[in-house]
């Protein structure tokens, strides 16, 4: 049995309300909260980035797994906001957590699915028998241009998953990836903010790829939507994951536990991974979980997990995602937010 042996998530404590952003740009707040189903989002502190978020999430994953960090053979961090263009984020994380130096490290990038890519490869290493444990992380301090629709959703957070074959808390039963050349969202080298194709990001991109991966995963597993207790899809806004769930035949009750986007925002590479962490926080032995990520460009990674008896032993060993989401919030006004996100041009 190969799967997740430890998981952890981390969200910064700072928040900005969608209403605050809307008023700044003279937009109707109702249109955002009702149309996109976004109420507020997380904002990284001035001293937080993808690396510090990854370290916090991975520390919680280690606390749950209770393994020797030296036994981790690979560390992969998926993000579209790696602090360095050249120097893998994982090099700093391994030294912070006492992993390595005998370890394979890489940074992954695939828009919002870089985190599930990291999980996918970490899982594959363990399944192939190449190593005892491997760590896959999805984390971001997402970028959204001032005044753009993305500014209401682009948030910060991440989740870490240690894959192994002993004391597995969620066995991975099936995986499937679905990818094509679809220019729905991109950021060119040296640009500060991503660009997107507006409505083109919907049917030809998000829905096509998630449905492609999900349909293949259901066929491969010979399962149907009603077999699952929980499902989580990439969450660019509140509306899309509900809509794709409905199109695939999932019910609202199956999506609720992982549907954290209205109060967290889109943590890009951390989106479906943090949703999965929220589900694992409340899952019971025997539950089946259906997960499909989406990364613009475009592609989706799908996973089917079966929760084991071990889950109840680890759930309380580290903070739960909903606790971080609902408590200890510090709200920012737009000026503070612009300063925190370094949107104000300063002298060098």
């Amino acid at each position: 049995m190969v799967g997740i042996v430890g998981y952890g998530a981390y969200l910064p404590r700072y928040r900005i309300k969608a209403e605050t952003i809307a008023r700044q740009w003279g937009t109707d707040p109702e249109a955002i909260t009702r149309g996109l189903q976004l109420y507020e989002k997380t904002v990284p502190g001035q001293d937080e980035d993808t690396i510090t978020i990854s370290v916090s999430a991975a520390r919680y994953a280690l606390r749950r797994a209770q393994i020797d960090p030296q036994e981790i053979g690979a560390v992969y961090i998926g993000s579209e906001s790696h602090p360095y263009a050249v120097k893998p984020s994982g090099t700093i994380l391994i030294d912070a957590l006492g992993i390595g130096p005998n370890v394979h490290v890489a940074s992954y990038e695939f828009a919002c699915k870089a985190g599930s890519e990291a999980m996918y490869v970490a899982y594959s290493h363990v399944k192939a028998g190449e190593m005892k444990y491997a760590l896959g992380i999805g984390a971001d301090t997402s970028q959204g241009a001032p005044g753009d629709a993305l500014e209401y959703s682009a948030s910060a957070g991440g989740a870490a998953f240690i894959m192994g074959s002993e004391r597995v808390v969620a066995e991975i039963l099936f995986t499937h990836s679905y990818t094509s050349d679809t220019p729905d969202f991109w950021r060119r080298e040296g640009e500060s903010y991503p660009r997107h194709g507006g409505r083109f990001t919907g049917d030809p991109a998000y829905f096509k790829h998630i449905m492609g991966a999900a349909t293949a995963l259901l066929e491969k597993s010979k399962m149907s939507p009603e077999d699952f207790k929980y499902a989580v899809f990439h969450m660019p806004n509140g509306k899309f994951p509900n809509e794709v769930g409905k199109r695939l035949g999932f019910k609202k009750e199956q999506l609720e536990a992982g549907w954290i986007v209205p109060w967290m925002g889109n943590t890009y590479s951390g989106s479906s991974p943090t949703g999965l962490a929220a589900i694992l926080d409340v899952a019971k032995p025997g539950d089946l979980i259906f997960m499909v990520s989406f990364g613009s460009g475009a592609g989706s990674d799908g996973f089917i997990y079966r929760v084991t008896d071990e889950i109840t032993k680890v759930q309380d060993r580290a903070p739960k995602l909903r606790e971080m989401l609902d408590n200890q919030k510090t709200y920012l006004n737009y000026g503070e937010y612009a300063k925190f996100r370094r949107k104000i041009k300063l002298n060098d």
Partner: protein
Amino acid sequence: MITARYHREIPQRYRLEAGKCLACGHLSFPPRLVCPECKAKKFETVTLSDEGTLVTFTVVRVASDKFSKETPFPVGIVELNGGVRVTAQIADANIDELKIGQKLRIVFRRIQDDGKAGILCYGYKAIMA
């Protein structure tokens, strides 16, 4: 260029590694070559607790150029469980709520950078537990 010094201090700044004197048990943080208590020269590496108590603090309102955009920010002396005291910035803090004696937890944060194109420096800060 701060690269060499930063790299040398990684075990302390990232993982709170201290030197425990094999003769008298005194903890030195950062580690020393000679024990300040018994003058012995043999140590073992131990990792300090990431939990502690706020001993005292001040609020920096006029900072050096590198930290001037983060003001006001508190800096405190934290007594970690086990007795070692460290000086650390207290992150995410509501200054009005900070109180001597309160419980703190050490976290991993970005400390500074070596200019726009230089390295990023990470290390420990404290947050309210």
